[in-house]
């Protein structure tokens, strides 16, 4: 401790007064107190009411070499530390040179103020690092959550740039793997709507490091990239010149999933080593998500092409008739199954009548759907040589018996449609192992067509006899699969819907357009199932035009 002026007031009186009390241990005198303050690890500076230093301990002197008794407290660099408006009793963190200090002020009477200084540089650095780490972890967790949610390439790319623009840079762009002519891109910039576009493949070469990143080469550190070379299309309009650029490949599953381009404005902070590491970790997650999505897109596009043929056809309106159909597959993602229907129109001007077929292939899901597709194609081909339905069916039976797939068993109803007189329509039907069609009359009467025959593909012979039905205008012939009648559900959940209920439901449809009939029956069936879908369900109705 160095010299001090004679102290008046509180601090000075402590030592004097305490010793006078008889019977109590002697309180430390002024010198002892000074020694105690001197030994304190925290810096202590005492000054008088005029702001002149009266006492500085060693710790304080070490932190602030300029402090000395007799000098004004706020001389030199100390001004920022000892602010006159510092609330009493409060602590403040102040950066001083390379140090961070915790500063506290106390008053002792009216004459003295004491300032306490603590060096918290190391502590702050530890907390700062911890906070930064926590921030990074939270960012990566959020990125993981959002990136894993979608299997759509475009949406994954959008999520990537949104995340990056919110946390890593002023603007972020994903350039997707270029095709032969162009590459798609998505860009997010703080406070602006997302932008999307394409750029010529050749133009990607004009961005420093981009061609390399798109080819999957490891990222080039930001400081080697010259932001001045950035072409105009890379940055959003009105962004201003880029100060810092970082181009990072998005590594996919063995193939690059594009590149992430980040830019910060001039005057913003540069990408430091830690920042670049974070971007690389983020890019690897984004890349994995984008490439998984790309793979899914490719497969589902292939799938869509393969299953397009297995979907029910658009129904035409043959002369004097209306058709409506509905197909609900038990497999709910791709909507394919073993039930099918189709319509075969004669060649324009050619002989023959339109044919309708509704059938059910043994089994479920994709395997059944493939066989159903084969049956439809097979019928189309057989029609070139035979249009009489009672002869078509035995031919189809032979074709199925020659089919190499296991259990190539099919049940179906085949109908030939003819416009009759006075708006009537005639339907010739053959039934092969399938529930017989129902007829809805104008008066609401419902009857079952009296035709039956063997299921196909199982036995050497498949003889069938056609039955002819006459429909007056508005009357309906309904073909359906057993998924409708054998649906378990109802109020108790385990009752079979059955033919009786289907007939009753059909009876309530008298006078409806045929599309409404089919929709109503499907709706009743769905309600009966109560969400527990078990089997494919098909309906196809022919109506003599009302």
């Amino acid at each position: 401790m160095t010299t001090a002026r004679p102290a008046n007031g509180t601090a000075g009186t402590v030592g004097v007064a305490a010793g006078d009390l008889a019977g109590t241990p002697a309180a430390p005198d002024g010198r002892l107190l000074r020694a105690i303050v001197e030994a304190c690890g925290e810096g202590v500076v005492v000054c008088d009411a005029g702001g002149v230093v009266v006492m500085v301990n060693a710790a304080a002197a070490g932190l602030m070499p300029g402090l000395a008794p007799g000098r004004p407290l706020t001389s030199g660099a100390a001004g920022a530390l000892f602010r006159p408006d510092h609330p009493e009793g409060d602590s403040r963190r102040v950066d001083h040179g390379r140090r961070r200090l915790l500063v506290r002020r106390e008053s002792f009477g009216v004459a003295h103020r004491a300032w306490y200084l603590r060096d918290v540089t190391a502590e702050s650095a530890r907390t700062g690092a911890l906070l930064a780490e926590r921030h990074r972890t939270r960012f990566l967790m959020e990125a993981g959550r959002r990136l894993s949610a979608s299997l759509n390439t475009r949406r994954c790319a959008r999520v990537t740039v949104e995340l990056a623009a919110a946390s890593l840079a002023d603007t972020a762009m994903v350039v997707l793997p270029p095709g032969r002519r162009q590459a798609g891109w998505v860009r997010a910039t703080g406070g602006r709507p997302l932008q999307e576009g394409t750029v010529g493949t050749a133009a990607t070469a004009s961005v420093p490091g981009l061609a390399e990143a798109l080819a999957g080469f490891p990222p080039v550190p930001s400081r080697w990239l010259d932001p001045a070379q950035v072409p105009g299309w890379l940055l959003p309009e009105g962004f201003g010149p880029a100060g810092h650029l970082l181009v990072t490949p998005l590594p996919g599953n063995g193939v690059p999933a594009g590149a992430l381009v980040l830019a910060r404005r001039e005057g913003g902070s540069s990408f430091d080593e830690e920042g670049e590491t974070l971007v690389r970790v983020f890019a690897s997650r984004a890349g994995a998500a984008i490439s998984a999505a790309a793979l899914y897109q490719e497969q589902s596009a292939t799938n869509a092409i393969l299953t397009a043929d297995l979907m029910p056809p658009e129904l035409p309106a043959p002369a004097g008739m209306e058709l409506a159909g509905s197909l609900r597959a038990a497999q709910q993602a791709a909507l394919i199954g073993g039930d099918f229907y189709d319509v075969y129109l004669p060649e324009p001007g050619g002989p023959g009548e339109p044919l309708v077929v509704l059938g059910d292939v043994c089994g479920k899901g994709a395997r059944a759907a493939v066989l159903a597709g084969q049956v439809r194609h097979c019928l189309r081909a057989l029609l070139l040589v035979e249009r009489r339905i009672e002869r078509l069916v035995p031919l189809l039976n032979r074709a199925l018996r020659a089919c190499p797939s296991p259990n190539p068993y099919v049940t179906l109803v085949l109908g030939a449609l003819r416009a009759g007189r006075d708006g009537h329509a005639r339907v010739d039907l053959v039934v092969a192992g399938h529930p017989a069609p129902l007829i809805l009359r104008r008066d609401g009467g419902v009857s079952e067509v009296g035709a039956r025959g063997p299921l196909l593909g199982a036995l050497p012979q498949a003889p069938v006899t056609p039955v002819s039905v006459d429909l007056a205008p508005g009357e309906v012939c309904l073909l359906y699969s057993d998924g409708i009648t054998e649906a378990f559900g109802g109020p108790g959940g385990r009752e079979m819907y059955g033919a009786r209920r289907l007939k009753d439901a059909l009876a309530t449809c008298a006078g409806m357009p045929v599309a409404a009939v089919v929709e109503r029956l499907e709706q009743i069936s769905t309600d009966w199932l109560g969400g527990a879908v078990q089997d494919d369900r098909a309906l196809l109705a022919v109506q003599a035009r009302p």
Partner: protein
Amino acid sequence: MTAPGASAAVDVGDERAAYLELIGRADERGAVGLVLGLLEDGVAAETLLLELIAPAQRRVGELWAANRWSVAREHGATAVSERAVAAIATRAVGEGAPARGRITVACTDGEYHALPTRLLAEVLRLRGWHVDFLGASVPGPHLITHLHRTGPDVVALGCALATRLPRAHATLTACQAVGVPVLAGGSGFGGDGRFARLLGADAWAPTADAAADLLTDEGLSVFPSPAEAPAHLSDEEYTHLTRRRGDLLPRAMTALTRAYPPMASYDARRLDATAEDLGHLLDFLSSALYVDDTGLFADFVGWTAGVLRARRVPAGALEAGLRVFHDELRDFPRARRILTRGIGAARDAGADWET
């Protein structure tokens, strides 16, 4: 968003009665001819959809609910309106590729009232959106597969009947989980959209044009923070009731036969109809539990009372059925509270008939 100039030339309000008459007769040619004629006279397609067809269909719903139109007539009229919408869409769309974002429009699984949703799809198409309309009763897995494949900006999910709300909730949660915000629409979400908010939809609109107005180019915010499951579901009454449905209904049928002697003489068809009515009551009770809304159930009871009255079922039968459920559901305090309100509503409806 209707075209004021076109409306000034031809007031479609004058055509509504004619249109309703045509669809009431299931006169497809007449109805399609009427709308195409108006289109040629310069009436905007959107005006036809929203100010001619939509109000007519609302009227059809009212007439059916009031038992003035049969189910067959209602279905016929709706089928004709579907054709009219298709005819307008074919004529009016096709000027260039859609310039705005992509939107998937679908009805909740089990939901067959597709026309309001279809109208929204067509209005959005007219306003330049790329629309994928998936139709009635779209199974959840199919919708999600579609979202992955096409990556739309928004899903518009229609739900007309409150009994589909639990499934609508599952679907909209699944859509949000793959990062696509959901715009809920249709009367199933409550006349004021309260169920849409409760179940965490990103937006709600009462009508097709309100929905279309909500969808600006900025779209809805993507990835809202995941909504908490409604707190009242923690009593699991909904779960247990759904699980016990299969036992509860046959028992209720038996109990009702004792409580309401005329049932003993019902034939199979009449019994089916009664079981169906009880099933609907139970489904509405489930939904009321799911969204914790007593009014939802009471409203349905009041409406059922009207339908039964039209079918000449005595007023006491409905109250007897509700009492059976009330007695059976001993361990369901929340369901019992809802049922008590329902019994009150049935009694009020009964009192109305007496006077």
